[in-house]
Every structure is written in C-alpha cells, then in structure tokens.
C-alpha cells in the first residue's frame, strides 16, 4: 500500500464518493492551494462543487510560479484528477470569472469569461480564492524602458512554456546580465530560472543575507551557483534610452524584522553604476479579486484584499474568501489552511440553510 503519491486534497475522507450527497452547490473561484483545499474539504462533505480556474491547468502558484524541482506538478494534477473522477468535482479550467476587473497576467490563456454575479447566483455558497497576481513595480527613476519584468511574469511564462501552453517565443528573453531585485522565495525562484537560462545573476536586496525572507540558505545557494548578492542596496535609477543598459545603485540604511522592512533611508553619496541588461522585480505582490472596486457588495480591506470576518465570509451573504486574496501573499501552507478553514465555515453556513 502506498501513501502520499500525490497531493490528496480530499485527505479529510476516504478515497471514495461520500455516501451522503448534500443538495447544495458550492462555487470555488481559483484552483490554487486555497481553492483546491476548500474543494477537497467540501467534496468530502458531499457537496456539489464547481471550481472555476482562468488558467488552462489547476494549481495556481504551485504550478505556474514555483518550479517543478520544489513542487512536482504531477502531484497537484493527480490530486485534481481525484477530485474530478472520484468526487465529481467540476473543474472548469480556462474559465475566467470577472465582474469588470482589469486584465491580469495569464488572462490571455483563458478561453471564456463568465460573470461573477452568475457564479454567485448559481451556487448556494461561493469561495473566492484568486490569489495575488499583480506585482509591485520597481520604485526607481527611468523604468519606462524595455527589459524590466516582474519575477512573476518571468516565472509564469517559463512555466507556461514548460507545460506547452505557450510557444517558446513567448518566454521572457533575458540577456546575459540580469539584476534580480528582492530576497523572497519569488526572487530566489526567478534567480534560479535565470541561472538555468544561462544568465549572470546579480541579486539586489534591502535585506541582509540572513534577513532574507527566502532564507539565508537559498541565497547562499544562488551565490554558490555563481550569483552576486548586494545587500542593503536599492536601484535608484535605470539607465538606458529604450532598454535597460545600466542601473544606478544606492546604499540604504534599513531595519528589517521578520521579513518586514520597518525603516528605509537612502544614503546619499553612495550612488554607483553597474551594468545590467535586464531587471527582474520581486518586491511583493498585490491581491487580485475578480473584480475592480467594491462591486456586488463585496468590500475590500487594506491593501486591496477581500475583507472577511472570522467565518471567512465577505460583506456579502454566502460569499466567502480564502487564501492570499484575503490574507496577502503567503506560503503555500498558509493559503492551504485558509482554504480548509473557509470550507469549514461554508459547511456550517450551508448546514443551517439545508
């Protein structure tokens, strides 16, 4: 008997359709770790589930961001296969749910767009788990040139090409000298990809090596693979007429605690210019609810997150939110647990209704 062969989202029950099927439908928007965790939990309870995913394959960041060496994609796909085949979960991939939100990275891969209102109306409860797919822009002068990419876009295109969803020509083509800004796991993953693509990587971060949210080990590994790491530094200005030709760095005085930058001041007189062909930016991401502004009575909280109460319910009755779109960018584990907890409350809510 073999266990743990794949990510079993339905781990809360046995590998068989529950005997008691509940006459309620749940719509889950987003098939990342939070959405899939919620789908698995509720499938075990016997609900009818539809998962809407704008990308052609499920998994979210686990598949389209994090490299396969860390999370083997098949483990996610096989878990989804079980959801579909044994638990009758409807996985509607390439199906974007929107209420007039702006187009974001990856939307081009969707084949259809459905109205959020419809998804909410056609279900007895809805869980929005759409993550944080907008990257923070580099706060430097002269960034209106070619050759600057968000780490997320770089990773996403690499993964999409690996999965055969995009032609090779759609990959971000990096030249030899690449500056990667940031010191979190996204920065580390992007740096690894760039090294694999044959680039010379220069990691630039406010954080010192041991303060890096990615962990000192990851940064050291990048250095061992030939990268350079400059700490307590930011890019002040991008130099180049139409594309990146060089970058002006400046030292900073900063205080970093638990991955949070508490204080930041540039130190005048420490400016210096280094060569660069490309800049990859990994300095945080913003939540991407499937709507712009507060349509449909779903209020936003700080930083553009979807506001939820202790039951994971939004300001709109029967609409819940889980994962990074409600809590901000976090590790897979936190998003996964968020999906489970939201699902627990969806179940409690629906039990009262049935």
């Amino acid at each position, binding site marked *: 008997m073999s266990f743990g062969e794949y*990510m079993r989202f339905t781990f809360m029950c046995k590998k068989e359709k529950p005997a008691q099927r509940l006459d309620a439908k749940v719509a889950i928007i987003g098939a990342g770790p939070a959405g899939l965790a919620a789908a698995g939990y509720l499938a075990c309870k016997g609900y009818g589930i539809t998962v809407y995913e704008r990308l052609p394959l499920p998994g979210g960041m686990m598949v389209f961001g994090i490299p396969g060496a860390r999370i083997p994609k098949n483990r996610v796909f096989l878990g989804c296969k079980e959801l579909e085949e044994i638990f009758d979960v409807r996985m509607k991939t390439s199906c974007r749910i929107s209420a007039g939100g702006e187009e974001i990275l990856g939307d081009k891969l969707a084949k259809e767009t459905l109205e959020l209102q419809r998804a909410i109306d056609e279900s007895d409860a809805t869980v929005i788990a759409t993550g944080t797919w907008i990257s923070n822009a580099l706060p430097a002068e002269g960034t209106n040139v070619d050759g600057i990419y968000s780490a997320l876009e770089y990773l996403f295109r690499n993964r999409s090409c690996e999965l055969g969803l995009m032609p090779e020509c759609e990959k971000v083509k990096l030249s030899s000298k690449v500056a990667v800004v940031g010191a979190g796991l996204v920065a580390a993953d992007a740096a690894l990809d760039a090294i694999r693509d*044959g680039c010379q990587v220069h990691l630039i971060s406010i954080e010192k090596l041991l303060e890096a949210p990615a962990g000192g080990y990851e940064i050291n590994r990048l250095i061992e693979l030939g990268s350079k790491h400059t700490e307590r530094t930011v890019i002040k200005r991008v130099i180049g007429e139409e594309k990146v030709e060089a970058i002006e760095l400046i030292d900073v005085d900063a205080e970093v605690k638990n991955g949070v930058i508490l204080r930041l001041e540039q130190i005048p007189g420490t400016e210096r210019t280094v060569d660069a062909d490309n800049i990859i930016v990994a300095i945080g991401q913003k939540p991407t609810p499937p709507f712009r502004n507060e349509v449909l009575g779903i209020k936003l909280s700080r930083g553009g997150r979807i506001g939820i109460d202790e039951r994971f319910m939004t300001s709109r009755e029967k609409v819940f939110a889980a994962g990074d779109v409600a809590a901000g960018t976090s590790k897979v*584990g936190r998003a996964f*647990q968020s999906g489970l907890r939201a699902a627990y409350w969806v179940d409690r809510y629906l039990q009262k209704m049935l």
Partner: protein
Amino acid sequence: MLVDVGGCIGCEVCEKVCEFVNSHARVNIYSTSDGILVPLTCVHCTNPVCVRVCPTGALYKDGDGAVLVREYRCIGCKLCAIACPFGAIDIDPVKGIIRKCDLCAERRRQGLVPACVETCPSGVVFYGEYEEVTRKPKRKAIELLRQMKVLSSEEDKESNTQGR
C-alpha cells in the same frame, strides 16, 4: 513515518494541515541560524528514548508503531521532552501534560493515514512499511543528484561561453 529533510521546501503545508486537523501542530517548520528550513516532528523511533525515560509508563508504542501518550498517566515531568533527540515533544501550556505527534491516531481509527503524508506538495513525508519509507527517499535523492549533474554541466557550458 519519515520526513526527507533534504527535499523539504519549507512550504508549511504539513504544519498548517496538522494544526487544522489536530488543533495544535505536531510538525513544525523551523529555521536554522543560517536560514535552512527544517521540519521537526516525532519520528516514532523503533526504540524510543522517551518511552524508556517515562517514569509512569504514559508513553507507549501502539500496533502501528506510533509512539503515543496516555494522557491520564502523564504527570508533566518533562523528562521525555528533554530526552528526545529530535525535540519532538511539546508541553501543553493549558493541560500541563505533554503533546506530540500521534500519527493522526483518530484518522487511523477511521482507516485514514496521517494528514501531512497526504498533503505535502513536495512528497517528502513518507509513511508505511520500513521498505516503503526508505525506498522513496532513495529515489528522490537519485533524482536530485541527476538534476544537480544537469545544472552543473550547464554551469560548465556557461563558464565556457563567458567571454562573449
């Protein structure tokens, strides 16, 4: 159960799922002083030190090989917590007795397996017969070595073309 620490990516799914299922996480991700993320949990030793030092016989091994605690016998002396080479035993601050991974005893009673085993995205938590448990880390290690070899040959290629 065995966790392949080398393959762990520190994603915390195990910790957060355990917390959800068991109210308190019995597997935790810790960071070493040089920033390596390691998962720490009870490994259910064949010859457990904790069972040997327990003065009341509260700790024991069940039929599946899991090391468990009979709560009513635990006097909170904490000898087991100190003796465990893996620091896998915690003290419950409310009850004053010890708390540890029980290989999801309640789930096993229902015919399920430990939650972390089934939810680890990277597949580094191994559970089953001894052979099962050791075969997979070997396979994983071979795959990792293979990737290292591929990456290092690409590095050679890169340093050979450095002059452009």
